Each structure stands twice: as C-alpha cells, then as structure tokens.
C-alpha cells in the first residue's frame, strides 16, 4: 500500500514548481538577442520565425544581419564583439545569396569594435566567424529533402568533433519551389500507401523533418517567404477590409492607412501551424537621408503579425547593415 501511495503522492506533487521550470527553460534555451527589428520579441531555440514580404523588402538582408550577430564571438582578446558565437546553417532555395555582402557587414561590425586600425586580428576574427557559417543551395525540392534528411547525421558528427552547439537554421525562401511542385504533382502509382510527390506532401515532410531536427538539436529557425502569388483587384478588396480591432484604438488606424495590398497566403495549413512567429516587412515610399551624404535610403516597414504588436518599426539598409530609424 505504502509504495502505491508514495507513487501517487509523488505524481500529485509534480516534478517541479513553475518557477523551477521557468528557470530550467531559461537556462537551457535562453532567449537570443537578435538585431532589429527582430529584437521586439524574445526568440529562443524551438521557435520558427517567418519573415514575410513582397520583393524587394530586405528580407535576405535581415537574414544576413541576423547571421552576422550570430556568428560573431561574444568577446575575444578582451574586446567585446557582442555576438552570440553560435553557428548558422543557411539553406538557400532562391540561390541568390551573395557571400560578399555577408563579409562586408561582418567587416563593418569588426571594424566598429577594433577601431579604424586595421590589423591582422580583424582577419582572424573574420575567419573565425565565417567558419561558423554553413551554406547549402538547393535547386529543387528533392535536394531540399535530401539535405534535411541527412542534416541530423551531419550535426551529430559536428557535435562529436568540435562540440559546437546552438544552431540557427535559415531558409531563404520557403516558397521558391511552390510553382514547380504545384505543376509537377504526379499521379499516385503503385498502391494506396505509396506517397507521391506533390506540394502538400513535400511541405508535410519538410515540416516533419524540421520538427525532428529541432527536437534533437535545439535551434531557432528563421524562414523568409516572398510574395509570389499576385493579388488581383478582387483579392485586394476582399483582404483589405478587416474587422476593426475591438477596444484598442492606438495605432491601428495608422496601421490601416499604411497597409499595402495584403498578400495572399499560399502555404498550406501544415506550414502555418508550424510557424510560431511571423513578421511582415515591406518597402515604403519614404526616403531617409543618410547623415554626411546626399544619398537617400529606401525605408522599410516591419510589423509583427504573430504575436500581434500594434506598432510599426521603420528601418533602412545601409552598407554597414540594417538600422532602425524610428
């Protein structure tokens, strides 16, 4: 009797208090301090962030900026670089990544810390950071699936050899194969239980593989999604009219005014339920003058949709990186 009672009692007592659990979660999956405009919401390993927006809206620039602060070391030789010292896995589906842009931004950040004196140290930090950056390009869905299926083994091997933990996975951009997969859906052949290649099935497996990967290797996933489905006049009107938000009347009227044609969601529900955070970026007509030069930068506007924050961030992209302006 006593044994069963003890078991029941321990079950009722629970394993840990909420406070303990919070402490454990914060210790094992600390929130990462990411550059603006992703800094508004604490993001941690296990989250899936979607950066959505039309082209061009500086989505890839945001990814590169985030990668820079991720691969830079925290500090080295007594100098504080303010990076996270994590490794970045960049999956390029658009095949448009320009490594020279990443190097340019990194050099700016390093030069800011070291001062203008260019030393051999700079190159060393650059190499050290770049070694944390892994890159793969995929030309079709099968290559993406093959890469995801074998990534687990690759990360295991890496962990064994140099103990690198703390990953950030980036996918640019998830809709790249949308049209090809939609058109190349094959007829189901050979029995009922044979899965066939289709848009739905491919994304199901991508989500499934990413879930497995994230449970084995805690990582933050950041994905860009370009607008590739046009809005016709009808869609525009249909989506433009939104229900007025109840109660809060702060910035929402301003939001409404700035809202461009709301773009159409084309990813299947399985993907949408996988995404935990969503930020919308788009270009605006404003031009922000750069200090000390006549050049104007196009301003971009970002808005958190999931969770919904009722204000907009405005940012510009300069040679040195992404900067908030308001």
């Amino acid at each position, binding site marked *: 009797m006593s044994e069963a009672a003890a078991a029941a009692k321990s079950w009722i007592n629970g394993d840990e208090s909420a406070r303990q659990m919070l402490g454990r979660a914060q210790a094992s999956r600390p929130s990462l301090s990411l550059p603006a405009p992703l800094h508004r919401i604490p993001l941690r390993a296990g989250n899936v962030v979607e950066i959505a927006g039309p082209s061009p809206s500086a989505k890839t620039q945001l990814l590169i900026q985030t990668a820079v602060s991720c691969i830079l070391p925290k500090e080295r030789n007594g100098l504080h670089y303010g990076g996270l010292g994590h490794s970045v896995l960049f999956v390029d589906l658009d095949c448009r990544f320009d490594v020279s842009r990443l190097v340019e931004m990194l050099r700016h950040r390093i030069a800011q810390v070291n001062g203008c004196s260019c030393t051999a140290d700079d190159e060393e930090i650059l190499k050290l950071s770049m070694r944390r*950056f892994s890159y793969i390009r995929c030309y079709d869905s099968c290559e993406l699936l093959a890469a995801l299926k074998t990534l687990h083994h690759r990360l295991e091997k890496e962990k064994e050899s140099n103990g690198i933990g703390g990953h950030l996975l980036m996918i640019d951009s998830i809709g790249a194969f949308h049209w090809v997969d939609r058109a190349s859906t094959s007829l189901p052949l050979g029995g009922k239980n044979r899965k066939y290649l289709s848009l739905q099935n491919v994304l199901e497996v991508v989500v499934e593989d990413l879930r497995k990967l994230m449970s084995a290797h805690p990582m933050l996933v950041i994905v860009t999604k370009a607008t590739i489905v046009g809005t016709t006049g009808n869609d525009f009107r249909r989506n433009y009219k939104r229900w007025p938000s109840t109660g809060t009347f702060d910035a929402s009227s301003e939001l409404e005014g700035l809202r461009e044609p709301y773009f159409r969601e084309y990813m299947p529900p399985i993907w949408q339920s996988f995404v935990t955070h969503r930020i919308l970026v788009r270009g605006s007509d404003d031009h922000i003058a750069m200090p000390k030069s006549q050049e104007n930068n196009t301003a971009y506007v970002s808005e958190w949709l999931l969770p919904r924050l009722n204000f907009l961030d405005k940012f510009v*992209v300069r040679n040195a990186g992404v900067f908030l302006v308001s």
Partner: protein
Amino acid sequence: MASLKRLETEFPILDPDFQSFCALRGIFTVQDFLIRDLQSLVADAEQQPSSERFMQAINQVLYVIDGLHQPWLNGVDLMEDAQKNKHVLSTGCEGMDFLLRGGLRRGQVTELAGPSSSGKTQFCLLTASTVAYKYMGGVIYIDTGNSFSAKRIARFLNQISCPASEEMQPRVLQEVMNSILCHPVYDIFSMFDVLHCLESKLKYQICRGDNDERLIIIDSISSLITPILGSSGSQGRALMVSAMSLLKKLAHEYNLVVLVTNHTVGGDGGIPKPALGVSWKTLPHVRLLLSRDCGSNTYQVSLLKHPSIASGKAAKFIIND
C-alpha cells in the same frame, strides 16, 4: 530517381528481403524515401526479425541520399570561391559599370527591363562585344526576336579596340567574332534544349580544364515566357521558375554572367514596370530598369534590386552609334 532494385547491384545490402519490406510500405525508389518520415520506418524495421540488416540497409539509403544534395560549404570556402571565381565583367559602358561597382558579377543573373527602344538590345550587343574582346571569353547569345546584328557587333568591336577610327585587323576581328555564338530560339522548349546542350558541353570542358565561356545573353526572355503564362494555372510559372533555376545553376557552377532582358507593362499611374508578374520578381539577382529620352542617345538606368547595393540608385550612360 533510382529504384531500390537498381541500387541492389551496387549495394548488395539492399537485398530482396529489404525491398519487399519497403514495398509493403509503399517505398520503391529513393524518391519515395525522401517523402517519407524515416523515423517511423526505422521504428518499423526494429520490430522485424532481421532488424540489424534492415537498419544497415536504411543507413545505406541515407548514404545514397546524402549524395543527392549540393555539398554544404563553409563560410571560408564561400569567401575563397568568391575571390577566385566570382569577378565582375565590365559591360563596356562606364555609367553602368559605375552603378554596378565594376560590372556584371559572374555567378549572378541580371535582368534588364525597359520599354521598347530603350536600349536593351544595344546594351546586350555592347556587353557581348566587350566580354568577347576584353576577356577573350565565349558568349552564348540566345536571340528570340531576330535582333542580333553581326554588323553592329563589328562596329562596337572597332570602337572598343581602337578609338582612333582605325579599322581592326581582319584576323583579330574574325577571331573575336568567332567566340560569339548566336542561337535563334523562338520558344521556351528550344531554350531549354540550348541550355541543356550547353550544360553538358561545359561539364565536358571542365573535365578537360579549358572553360572559356563567360556570358549567356537571352534577348528577350520575356517573349519566351509571356506566351506560356496563362491567367491561371501553374504550368507556365513552373516552366519560368525552372528555366531561371537552370540559369542560376549554370551561372554559379560554371562562373558565368547571365544577362536576360524583359519588356515593361504599364503599372500604377501608367509608370512602366517590368513584365512577368510577382512570381518573377524573386528570381533574378540583379534587376535594372532602362529608359531613354526620345531621340537622344543618353540612356538612364535605375537599380531595382541588388544583393549588395542599395536599390533606387540611378545612372546615365551613352551608347555611341
């Protein structure tokens, strides 16, 4: 993709026993593996009497799958590849080179959009001449509107080589002209043909170590794509995306510059904007919009999109007669 039966000759571990185990679960080919959840398959295999062999076989298939994707590259490798292979090629026109910080970058696809008679073809011909003369590189010119002119190329070559209105030596001229290959192409399928032939030729050349192709020009790609882009349906867009995917692959793997032209349509308020719709926008690396004042030979170009230069910059240039 290969069926498991075919793989058996190479990897005997994939024996008929394993094949029937997979067939029961609807897996016949490597592609079926790809769109499967492998963990449930592994769990299934562990229940079987010969689980150890099955696990080995699954690992063998994973090894095959590992060869199906492009290699993972380290940031340092990428930097080295960019420094060694991804230079810029001068277009022969100063304003444009200044705007693009030196010219067109190898490994990238550049889109040149503009209304008719805004200088798209002239710019293409000038770039072809410059690359053929200055870099002694091969040029593949895919011409969809019969607008390629050998005479114009010869005139550009004379301008580039000796500004003092001296004629170029016929032998040199012939050599340079020989390196520009023009393919008249009138539909997207013939374009795929040309590009696939080119790919196998480049593969062969890489093996021999003499790769001198530098530039692919498609003037204009929009006249190949517009007819297949219906109002609805995904077939046309799928062809467009895979054509660009192939071009990007060729550009990256063989360090080529790809230059394609696009026409314009009326946008909001009648301002011309590049054709081909929103799904096209995400495809090229660099997007340029050309325009010209009526009657003058001064062209204006503005940058719509670039991986490393702020968009919105503009420049002017002149193409001599």
